[in-house]
């Protein structure tokens, strides 16, 4: 299985350095690592594994699910999950979930740090809803559930990582989607 070798990193560092001088090096590294991991995903299974890795190692949640949008765009069906009970989250109805309408317009939605409002009508706290864009169209939604207890809410760098997920995770739902 092809994975970016660590020896490749030195060659790619110059691109990484150009991400922006004002951004913290650690933040740049996270965003860059997320992009590289997704762009180098071998196949659909590897792309889903990349989503799990990015959620757990870079954002700070081990509860994540991907819901695919149905043809009528009225429901989202659970496609893959990690760390959550799939029986509790098999389908999301767009009509009952106002935040999903926003996500299906292509914009990620995040739970504000001090807000008690949940993003979905579920008992499990939802931290972010991230559309997966395939050819520019939201075709699925990544749901990031409970963050690690020591994690202080969604940070600015997490939003950037979610943007990478949104733009580069198409292969997770469309096996032949180009990178």
């Amino acid at each position, binding site marked *: 299985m092809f994975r970016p070798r660590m020896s490749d990193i030195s060659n790619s560092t110059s691109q990484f350095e150009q991400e922006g001088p004002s951004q913290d090096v650690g933040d740049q590294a996270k965003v860059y690592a997320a992009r590289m*991991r997704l762009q180098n995903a071998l196949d659909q299974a590897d792309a889903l594994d990349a989503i799990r890795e990015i959620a757990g190692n870079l954002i700070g949640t081990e509860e994540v699910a991907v819901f695919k949008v149905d043809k009528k765009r009225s429901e989202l069906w659970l496609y893959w999950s990690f760390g959550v009970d799939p029986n509790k989250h098999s389908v999301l109805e767009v009509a009952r979930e106002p935040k999903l309408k926003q996500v299906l317009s292509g914009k990620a939605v995040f739970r504000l740090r001090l807000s008690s409002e949940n993003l979905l009508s579920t008992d499990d706290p939802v931290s972010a809803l991230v559309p997966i864009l395939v050819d520019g169209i939201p075709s699925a939604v990544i749901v990031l559930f409970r963050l690690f207890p020591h994690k202080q809410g969604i940070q600015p760098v997490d939003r950037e990582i979610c943007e990478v997920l949104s733009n580069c995770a198409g292969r997770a739902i469309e096996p032949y989607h180009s990178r």
Partner: protein
Amino acid sequence: MPKKVLLVDDSTTTLMMEEMILKQRTSYQCVTAKDGLDAISRAVVESPDLVLMDVVMPRMNGFEACKRMRLEASLRETPIILVTTRGEEEYVEAGFQSGCNDYITKPIDSFELVTLLHSYLGE
């Protein structure tokens, strides 16, 4: 001679991020391993000045690898920092019982990581 850090994680994403941070913010040399078993053999060969190791990994987890490294004469004094997803007391205690010197929680904060490594290896 630059100090050598062995980075251990089954996630290529994490290894890439850690190596980028250390390359940008320190003069340390990085070597990598993808699980606990791999880490032990790499550590014996490379004699790193510090090991930064994930806990949850296939084949052999970080706790077990840490214990086994402590049985190797050449690694008995090598600082080992475990990377955990949980900061709860009992989990941290299990780490220290395995022989680690310190721990850091995911997601890794670059400032915290560099400060911690500097405290063991100097700048």
